[in-house]
């Protein structure tokens, strides 16, 4: 049971990573990256590493995601004007 869940989680993680790189739209890529970060948080808790899970959710997905979203927000705003 645990094995099947781990395998599915690993595949979902790799799929989200692949889509992050391959998606043509940069906004969507950032959203997929945040999804990737949340999946990675799950992986860390599966690996009995709650400290890393907390840090990944807060820093990896949260702060990095916010930084990236802000960056594309700026880029888009500038492009229009």
């Amino acid at each position, binding site marked *: 049971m645990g094995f099947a869940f781990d395998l599915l989680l690993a595949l979902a993680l790799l799929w989200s990573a692949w889509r992050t790189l391959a998606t043509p739209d940069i906004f969507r890529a950032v959203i997929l990256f945040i999804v990737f970060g949340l999946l990675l948080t799950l992986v860390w808790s599966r690996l009995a590493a*709650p*400290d890393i*899970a*907390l*840090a990944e959710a*807060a*820093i990896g997905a*949260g*702060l990095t995601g*916010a*930084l990236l979203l*802000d*960056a594309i927000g*700026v880029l888009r705003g500038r492009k229009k004007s």
Partner: protein
Amino acid sequence: MKRFAVALLAALFAVALIAALLELPAPAVDLPAAVGAKMAESGIAHPVTAVLLNFRGYDTLLEIGVLLLALIVVLAVAAREEAKQPAVADPVLQTLARIAAPLMLLAAVYLLWAGAFRPGGAFQAGAVLAAAAVLLHLAGLAAAWQKPGKCLRIGLAAGFLVFLAVAAGLLVEGALLQYPPAWAGALILLIEATLTVSLGLILAGLFLFLS
């Protein structure tokens, strides 16, 4: 052509390395046992925090240096960007931020306190503090930061400076960052508490100086 070659190379590398991972002997050195044996002397009850701030505290000291350095570069580069107009105030988001920010402050204090004996610690607490600041900014309740004044600079550097001061002070008695077992818990708590504030400011600064 280049695209195809790099992709092929990466795929071959991944397959070969995975094959190499499937048949490994047991490691020769058993560090978890060593950590367990010295836990009582570390002054901390949670193994990951003990490694992070005591056994390998020197890594953490340099890592805070990396973070401060990144902030200095962000400051130097972003200072020339023209100031952006304040974000559009969204009443729903504002209400949410007003409720969430104090709760996040509480969560940060809890995480800092919890780090001594369960998952948590200065990094997670600092990240939550930073997230609160970012949320307030996005809701239009806090402005983006301009050039930092004296107070803000001291706040940004305080955690690193306290860490450095403790590391240097302990050299009088023994090695770098060699906590006397009786004082270890108190000194680590002092470092963690100032680090939480500074990390919160630095992580928030990475966002607020840029935007």
